């Protein structure tokens, strides 16, 4: 079985992450319950003729993938695998409201066409003229992890040498208003730095796209090796047991983990899963979090992988992400854990390469 590497990254998030030469040098602080991605100049990457039908999510996905491809110095890849929890919300909403508001009359096809979950993957393929394998995973908070798992399977078994993998989700107003109704979005505005102390239900919603070129060929510029990834629809017992089993499967003990990257989103009901690990078996491990920077969305964990990749490559750890006082220096092995509303848990293990 071949090893799998992260050879390049491309990130569009509510921080200014689209420039690969910097790494959270300046932090944008928010005081809100819905935050948006910081837009790069999309026109630098997509011609007006090609972008005229694209909603923000598609643009973010296409541009993040181009940033990643540019960094890997590739014109195309063997496969494109996308994760998106909610899909193309803006166009879905546009078409749905047109159906209802116009009583099924005078409807035009563009928003329907663009509403399909695999629009981002399809548009990337179209732009690259990439006729290879093209999958889209749409399973809530493990959409991105499913894409990585698939890519890893392909690369390990030599079904492909380069795979573009990414997670993308966009903010849409109607959907947000629904999620506010059921308290999945926090009722009140929260300052980024206070997110974990809000003690209220729900999360701060956001959007973004994080794409990566994965390969079974290591380059000097590679960020990290993806050692293992596992997803769990539910928990039978508790997250500590699952973490222990995951480490054991990979012949590692707690001490081997140099850094734990957690997906805490400040939801008073569900952060207990993270807290169980951070104050339990990983009590003496350095810990970081990131959803105060990028917000919560179904593929927010792809920002976590971006963060961990950057830390492994630069060996720098931005002050703003620190969750505890433990100071590490030599980052070799990073474990990531994420879940959303107590379901769809995932562990991802990255190693310096």
């Amino acid at each position: 079985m071949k090893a799998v590497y992260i050879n390049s990254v491309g990130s569009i998030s509510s921080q200014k992450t689209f420039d690969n030469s910097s790494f959270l040098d300046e932090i944008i602080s928010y005081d809100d319950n819905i935050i948006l991605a910081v837009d790069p100049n999309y026109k630098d990457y997509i011609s007006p003729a090609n972008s005229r039908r694209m909603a923000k999510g598609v643009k973010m996905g296409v541009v993040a993938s181009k940033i990643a491809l540019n960094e890997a110095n590739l014109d195309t890849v063997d496969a494109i695998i996308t994760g998106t929890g909610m899909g193309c919300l803006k166009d879905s909403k546009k078409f749905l409201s047109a159906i209802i508001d116009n009583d099924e009359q005078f409807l035009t096809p563009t928003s329907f066409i663009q509403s399909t979950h695999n629009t981002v993957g399809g548009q990337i393929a179209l732009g690259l003229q990439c006729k290879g394998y093209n999958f889209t995973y749409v399973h809530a908070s493990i959409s991105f992890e499913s894409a990585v798992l698939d890519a890893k399977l392909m690369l390990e078994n030599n079904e492909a040498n380069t795979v573009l993998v990414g997670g993308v989700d966009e903010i849409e107003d109607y959907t947000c208003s629904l999620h506010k109704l059921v308290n999945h979005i926090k009722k009140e505005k929260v300052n980024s730095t206070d997110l974990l102390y809000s003690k209220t239900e729900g999360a701060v919603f956001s959007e973004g796209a994080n794409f990566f070129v994965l390969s079974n060929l290591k380059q000097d510029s590679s960020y990290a090796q993806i050692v293992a990834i596992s997803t769990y629809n539910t928990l039978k017992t508790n997250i500590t047991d699952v973490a222990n089993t995951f480490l054991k499967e990979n012949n590692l003990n707690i001490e081997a983990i140099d850094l734990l990257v957690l997906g805490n989103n400040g939801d008073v009901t569900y952060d207990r899963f993270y807290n169980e690990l951070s104050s339990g078996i990983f009590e003496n491990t350095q810990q970081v979090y990131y959803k105060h920077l990028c917000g919560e969305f179904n593929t927010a964990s792809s920002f976590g992988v971006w963060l961990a990749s950057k830390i492994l490559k630069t060996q720098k750890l931005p002050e703003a992400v620190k969750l505890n006082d433990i100071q590490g220096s030599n980052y070799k092995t990073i474990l990531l854990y994420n879940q959303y509303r107590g379901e769809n848990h995932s562990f991802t293990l990255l190693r310096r390469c």
Partner: protein
Amino acid sequence: MDDLKQELKENIVEQLNLEDIAVEDIDDNDMLFGDGLGLDSIDALELIVMLDKNYGIKLTDPKEGRAIFESIDVMAKYIFENRTK
């Protein structure tokens, strides 16, 4: 007729989101599809809805659109002769 042509150009640019094309740049005889404005089959479907909604002309077969949407000139003539509103 000139007003109708102007209206069509404005609607096409707006409806089809042709950000990089200015209304004044569209010549009455420019090809709308292919080498001209570069419209495609999805745009043709959008234009069919526009005919229905704005001028009360119903096309049932998308293939009919190809000839009608050749240029602004051809389209305006067709609408002028067939409009019901």
